[in-house]
């Protein structure tokens, strides 16, 4: 039995839902928004835009050295070759993981994230715990919270997305993937590996 009180924010889901509907209703009535426009925007992020796009980019970079070179120099130009780009990814920068350097992305001030390649961010990326700790104790966060141990000899580079540049990580191509097609490679690339809090899937496990 606990006498701890619950946060007030949990109790009012119904009220927040009502506020959201009220807001849209008023804007629709004033002719400022339309339901089809809102529905199509939602649908785009539910169905079309997500980490499968970033996975395509990574798989291409693993397969094509020219593309990789361009991706690291001008991520937007490279992504555009795959028809990828858009809002919250107008200025993307790719940082490359290696045995010597592990990169991890955070936004301490809010929750900036490269939507065109990763979709909308997961809750943990947006909430105070990850945002507060990752800039100060990235190794600890990666190990404790994501089960990702970084070699002591490797540098850890944290990228705090404080302006309009959006970072994502090019993870190392896993061993045992020689001869795989881009599509097969893309299936190994996780959202977390492009944020820097995970590794690509092990090809042995996905076979």
């Amino acid at each position, binding site marked *: 039995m606990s006498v701890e009180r619950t946060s007030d924010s949990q109790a009012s889901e119904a009220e927040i839902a009502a506020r959201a509907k009220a807001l849209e209703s008023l804007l629709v009535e004033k002719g400022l928004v339309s339901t089809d426009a809102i529905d199509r925007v939602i649908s785009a992020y539910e169905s079309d835009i997500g980490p499968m796009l970033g996975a395509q980019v990574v798989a291409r970079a693993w397969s094509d050295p020219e593309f990789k070179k361009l991706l690291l120099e001008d991520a937007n130009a490279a992504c555009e070759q795959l028809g990828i780009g858009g809002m919250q990814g*107008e200025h993307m920068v790719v940082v490359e993981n290696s045995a010597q350097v592990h990169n991890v992305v955070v936004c301490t001030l809010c929750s900036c994230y490269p939507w065109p390649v990763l979709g909308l961010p*997961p809750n943990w990326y947006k909430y105070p715990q990850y945002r507060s700790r990752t*800039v100060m104790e990235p190794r600890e966060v990666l190990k404790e919270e994501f089960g990702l141990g970084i070699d*002591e000899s490797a540098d850890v580079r944290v990228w705090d997305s404080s302006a309009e540049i959006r970072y994502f990580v090019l993870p190392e191509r896993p061993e045992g993937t020689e001869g795989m097609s881009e599509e097969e490679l893309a299936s190994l690339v996780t959202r977390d590996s492009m944020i820097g809090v995970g590794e690509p899937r092990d090809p042995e496990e996905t076979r």
Partner: protein
Amino acid sequence: MNGVHDLGGMHGLGRVDVEDYEPVFHNPWEKLVFGTMVATMGQGLYNLDEFRHGIEVMEPAHYLTSSYYEHWLETIEKNLIEKGVIDRGELDARTQEFLKNPEAPVPQREDPELADRLLQLVHGGASSRREVSAKPRFEAGDRVRVRNVHPHGHTRLPQYVRDKQGVVERVYGAFVLPDKHAHGEGENPEYVYCVRFDAEEVWGDSAEPREAVSVDLWESYLESL
């Protein structure tokens, strides 16, 4: 502002809570809030910096305990009310109606032209980069110090790097300055630099080994060393 949103380096917030197989949206109202943001900001009813600042001025405990899309709802309401687009009274009255009839539908209105424009925004983006005639003050390799400022208004200068020294890593071109743009004071574009800080400079003895943190900073946040 030195707000609670400026979280870098804060202790005591607990474990990271990772949800397996997390959906894009957790319930219908999150979708509505997301879509409404794109539709209203996308039409220029307020700008991104005003949107962010509207979240930062939330009462700190409310900020910490409310969900992400509740933050969005707060700032959309706040901005649309401040701009005179909607009225607090009509919003509250309508909210009460939906509270009484949660299943009541939102009125429908079709506007394919608007839908197309917003989809174009989604897939094409809207850059806040601007061409300026001035040359950048710093170049890659320059050592800089972050200014020790504590403005009451909006800023994108995290507290944890203020008064710290770093090295310019990249020069990104000029971008709209949030500190002014959030307060209706124009775009005032400035160069943005990626500045790398050794963790020891930032966190002292509490730094992890072999760590560096890079932060993107506007030119007026920086001074020469």
